[in-house]
C-alpha cells in the first residue's frame, strides 16, 4: 500500500519503520530536514521536507496515489488539518493523532463528520493498556482475540510453581486446565513451545486460554490472581489523567505523586476522586511515607525514562506490588529486559501497533485476511487471528495430519462463540476464527500456515 506519514518524531518513525517492514511504500513528511534525512537513510522510504498540511507538499508526496495518510506531528490541529486536506486532495483514508485531553470527547465527531478513519490518542491508548494490566496483574501483557473471548497472556513463572515439574503436554492431564502454552522467552531468546518443552525458573511464558480457564490455571500453578484495589502513580501527565479516570471508574483507589504544585492543583480539579500528593517522588522517604510498602500496584509515569526505571527498581525492593514502568524514548530493550522490571509500557509502540494493526486490517480488504494482530515477543513472535472463509486444504482435517510450517502454533479456534483450545484431533471448519502464534513473518492467509 502507498502510505504517507506526516511527522517523524518518536511515533512517526516507529510507524514508518514498521509499515516499511510490512512491505508498504512509505513516504514521510517533516519540516526538519535532518530528521527526514536521518530516517530516509536508515530505511527504504522516501523523505520529503516541508509542511505536511500544504497541498503542494502532499502532492509531492503523491497524495493522489496514496491509500492512507497518517498525521502524527506534535500538534493536534496540524494533524487534523493534514487529514482534511488529504481527504480533499486525494482519495485516501486518514489517521490523525490527537492527544490533547480537550479533544478527547470529539473523536466520534472527527470520525463521522470530518471523515477521519481513525483518531488515536497515544496517552489514552497507553492508559488503557495499563488499566488492562492492572485488572489482571499476574500477566505482563494481555492481548484479546475474538472480541475478548480468548486471551493471550504473558507472565513470569513463579519460583515455587508446580509448573516447573511438568512438560507442556502434561499440563492438560496433570493440572486439568484447558490452556495452551505458546511461547517461552528464555535469556532473551524466543521458543515456540511443543509438547516436550519443559519450563525453567525465570522463564516468561505466554498462554492462550479463555478468561475463565486462565483464572483456574493461575490458581493451579499458585500464581497470585488478586485484583488490585489501589494504585500509586508517580507523575501527573496526560497518561496519569486518563489512567486515573479509568481506574476510578472501575473502583480502584488512585494516589498521584507529583512535584509541580500548579499541576497538582490542576489535576485535582480534573480528577476529583484521586488523592493528589504534592511531593518529590525521587526522595525515598516520600514514597515510604505514602505507603509504598502496602500498595497493590505502582506505576511510574514521569517524563524521564531513567527516573521511571529507578523508581520501579526501588519500589521492587520495598514491596511486592505490581509494577508498571513507562518508557518513552530509550531503546535498549535487552538491557531493560534484564532488569526484570515487570510490566513495561512503551507509548510509542502502542500507538504504532494500533496503527499497524489498522493498516493490516485495511489490507485485509485487498487480499490479506488478518483480523487482529499482536506482537507477542517484540520483533520475533506474532499472534494473528484469521477468519476461515472458504473450504481449503486446512479445513475438516485433524490438526495432527496438517503439515505446518516450523515454529508455528495453532493456538485457538473460536467456533460459534465457543473457545476450543486445539488438540491434535480437532479440526478447523469454515466460519471459525483461528489464532496463530508464529515466528514466520507476513502470514496473509490462514492457508499460509502449511509448509
Amino acid at each position: 500500500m502507498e502510505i504517507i506519514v506526516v511527522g517523524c518524531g518518536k511515533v512517526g518513525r516507529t510507524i514508518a519503520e514498521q509499515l516499511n517492514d510490512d512491505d508498504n511504500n512509505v513516504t514521510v513528511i517533516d519540516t526538519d530536514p535532518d530528521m527526514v534525512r536521518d530516517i530516509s537513510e536508515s530505511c527504504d522510504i522516501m523523505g520529503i521536507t516541508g509542511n505536511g498540511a500544504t497541498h503542494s507538499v502532499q502532492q509531492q508526496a503523491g497524495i493522489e496515489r496514496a491509500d492512507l495518510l497518517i498525521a502524527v506531528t506534535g500538534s493536534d490541529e496540524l494533524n487534523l488539518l493534514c487529514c482534511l486536506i488529504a481527504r480533499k486532495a486525494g482519495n485516501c483514508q486518514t489517521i490523525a493523532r490527537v492527544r490533547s485531553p480537550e479533544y478527547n470527547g470529539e473523536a466520534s465527531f472527527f470520525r463521522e463528520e470530518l471523515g477521519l478513519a481513525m483518531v488515536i490518542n497515544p496517552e489514552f491508548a497507553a492508559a488503557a493498556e495499563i488499566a488492562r494490566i492492572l485488572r489482571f496483574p499476574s500477566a505482563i501483557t494481555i492481548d484479546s482475540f475474538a472480541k475478548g473471548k480468548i486471551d493471550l497472556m504473558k507472565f513470569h513463572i513463579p519460583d515455587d510453581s508446580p509448573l516447573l515439574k511438568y512438560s507442556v503436554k502434561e499440563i492438560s492431564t496433570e493440572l486439568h486446565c484447558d490452556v495452551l502454552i505458546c511461547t517461552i522467552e528464555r535469556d532473551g531468546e524466543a521458543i515456540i513451545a511443543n509438547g516436550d518443552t519443559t519450563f525453567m525458573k525465570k522463564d516468561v511464558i505466554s498462554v492462550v486460554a479463555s478468561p475463565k480457564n486462565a483464572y483456574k490455571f493461575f490458581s493451579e500453578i499458585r500464581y497470585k490472581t488478586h485484583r488490585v484495589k489501589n494504585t500509586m502513580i508517580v507523575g501527573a501527565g496526560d497518561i496519569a489523567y486518563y489512567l486515573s479516570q479509568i481506574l476510578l471508574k472501575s473502583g480502584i483507589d488512585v494516589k498521584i505523586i507529583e512535584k509541580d504544585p500548579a499541576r497538582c492543583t490542576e489535576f485535582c480539579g480534573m480528577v476529583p476522586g484521586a488523592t493528589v500528593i504534592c511531593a518529590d517522588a525521587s526522595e525515598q522517604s516520600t514514597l515510604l511515607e505514602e505507603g509504598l510498602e502496602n500498595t497493590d500496584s505502582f506505576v511510574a509515569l514521569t517524563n524521564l525514562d531513567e527516573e521511571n526505571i529507578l523508581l520501579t527498581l526501588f519500589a521492587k525492593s520495598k514491596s511486592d506490588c505490581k509494577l508498571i514502568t513507562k518508557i518513552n524514548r530509550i531503546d535498549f530493550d535487552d538491557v531493560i529486559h534484564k532488569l526484570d522490571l515487570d510490566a513495561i509500557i512503551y507509548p510509542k509502540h502502542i500507538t504504532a501497533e494500533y496503527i499497524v494493526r489498522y493498516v493490516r486490517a485495511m489490507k485485509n480488504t485487498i487480499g490479506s485476511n488478518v483480523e487482529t494482530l499482536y506482537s507477542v515477543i517484540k520483533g520475533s513472535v506474532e499472534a494473528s487471528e484469521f477468519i476461515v472463509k472458504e473450504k481449503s486444504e486446512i479445513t475438516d482435517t485433524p490438526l495432527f495430519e496438517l503439515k505446518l510450517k516450523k515454529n508455528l502454533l495453532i493456538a485457538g479456534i473460536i467456533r460459534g462463540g465457543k473457545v476450543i483450545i486445539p488438540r491434535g484431533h480437532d479440526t478447523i471448519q469454515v466460519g471459525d476464527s483461528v489464532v496463530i502464534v508464529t515466528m514466520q513473518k507476513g502470514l496473509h492467509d490462514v492457508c499460509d500456515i502449511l509448509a
Partner: protein
Amino acid sequence: MNYRIIAYILGWVLNFEALFMAVPAFTALYYSEGAGIGFVFSLLICLFFGVILTLKKPAKKAIYSRDGLVIVSLSWIVLSLFGALPFYVTGVIPSFIDAVFESAAGFTTTGASILSEVESLPRCILMWRSFTHWIGGMGVLVFIMAFVPLSGGQNMYIMKAESPGPSVSKFVPKIKATALLLYSMYFILTLAEFVFLLCGGMSVFESLNTALSTAGTGGFGFRNNSFESFSPYIQWVVTVFMFLFGVNFSIYFLILSKRIKEAMKSTELRVYILLVVAVTALITVNVSDMFATLEDAVRNVAFTVVSLVTTTGFATVDFNKWPELSRSIIVILLFTGACAGSTCGGIKLSRIILLFKSMSKELRLLVHPKQVHQIKIDGRVVSHETVRSVNVFLVCYMLIMMISFILISFDNHDLITNFTAVSATLNNVGPGLGLVGPTSNYGFFSGFSKLVLIFDMIAGRLELFPMLALFSPYTWKDK
C-alpha cells in the same frame, strides 16, 4: 566495517558483469567471430568469483555510510579490472594496463581510448565497449539494486555514492522501484535513439552501438573519425539525444507524472539550455569562416558543444584546429558537465549554480555583514550541509586535478596535453586538446600515467568522495 556484505555485493557485481558479457558473446556468435571465445572465458571467470562470493548470504546486513562508499568504489575498481579481461584475453589489447584503461574508460563513460584503430576490431569488442558505456552511465549498482534485494533499507548509502549530483533523492518510496524506474526511462530513451538512427539509414549494429554510447554519454566510436563521415541527419539525431541524456532524469519523471510546469521551472534545466545555446552561438561566430554553409557550421559546433558539455566526447570535426577563443571555451566546457542526476560526468551545473549563489551571498555579506540570507534553488532552501559538501567537492576536485597533473607531467609531454588529458578523464569527457585531441588517443602515456588517469576516471564518475574514502585511513580504522 561489514566485510561480509561488501564481499557479497562485490560478488553480485561480478555475477552481473558476467551477465553483461553475454551481450558481446552473443554478438560474436551472430557474426561468427572467434573473439567470442575470449568473452565466454572472461564470463566464466567473473561467474566463478561471483558465485563463490554470493554463495552464502551474510547474517549481518547493516550497511553504514562508510560501507556504502567502500562498496561503490571497490565495485567500480573490480568492474574495470574484470571488464578488461575480454580485451586482454582476445589479444586486441596486448598490455593489461591498457586493457584496464580501456575498460575503465568504458564503464566510467569517459570514452578515452588507447586504440588508434577501431574499424578493424571484431564487432563483439566494439559492442562490449559501447555496452560498458550504457551500464556505466546509469550505474551498475543501481542496475543491480533494481533486480536483487541486496540488504535491508540501507541501500540508500549505495545509491547516494553512485548517483551523480550534490543531493540524491528517490522518485518513489522504494529504492528498488526507483532504480527500476530510472532504468526504464533510460531504456526507452535509448530505444528511441536507436529507432531514429535506424531511420537515418544507419546499420542495425552501428545504430545500436551509437545509441548505447550516447545514452551513457560515453564516447567510444566505431569509426576512426568518430561521426565525421555520417549524414547531417544522423549528426543532428546524436546531438539531440546527447542533449537529452544530459538532462536530470527527475525532470523526465516529473513529465511522466504530468507535473510539466514544475519540470520546466527547474533552474538547472534552464541554465543548461541557455549555456548550450549561448556557447554554440559564440563558437559558431568564431569559426564560421571554416565551414562552407551556416548550417554546416551550426551543426558541427552544436554537436561539439553538446558532446563536450554532456561529457560524451563524440566528434564530427577536429576542434583542435579551431581558433584560440573556441579552444579556450572548449577547455572550460570540459569542466562544467551537464545536469546532476543525468548520465554525464563533470562538476555538474547544479553545483556550479550553487557555488555562484553562495559566492553572491558572501559578496553581499561583505556589504551588509548582518544580512540574513538563504540560498535557494527552485524556490527551496538549500541546506548548509549541501553547500558545504559542494565547497569541499570543489576543493577535492582541484586537489586531485593538480596532483594528477603533476604526476603525469613526468612523461614530459606538453602542458596543454597534460592539462586537458587530466580534465578530460576526471570529467569523463574523453578527448582533450593537443596530443589527446579528438583524432588522437591516450596510447602514448606511460603505464604509471595511465594508472593515474584510470584513478581520475573512476574518481570522476563516482564524484570523488567514494574513491577518497577508499584510500582514507579513517575508513579502515575499526576502533
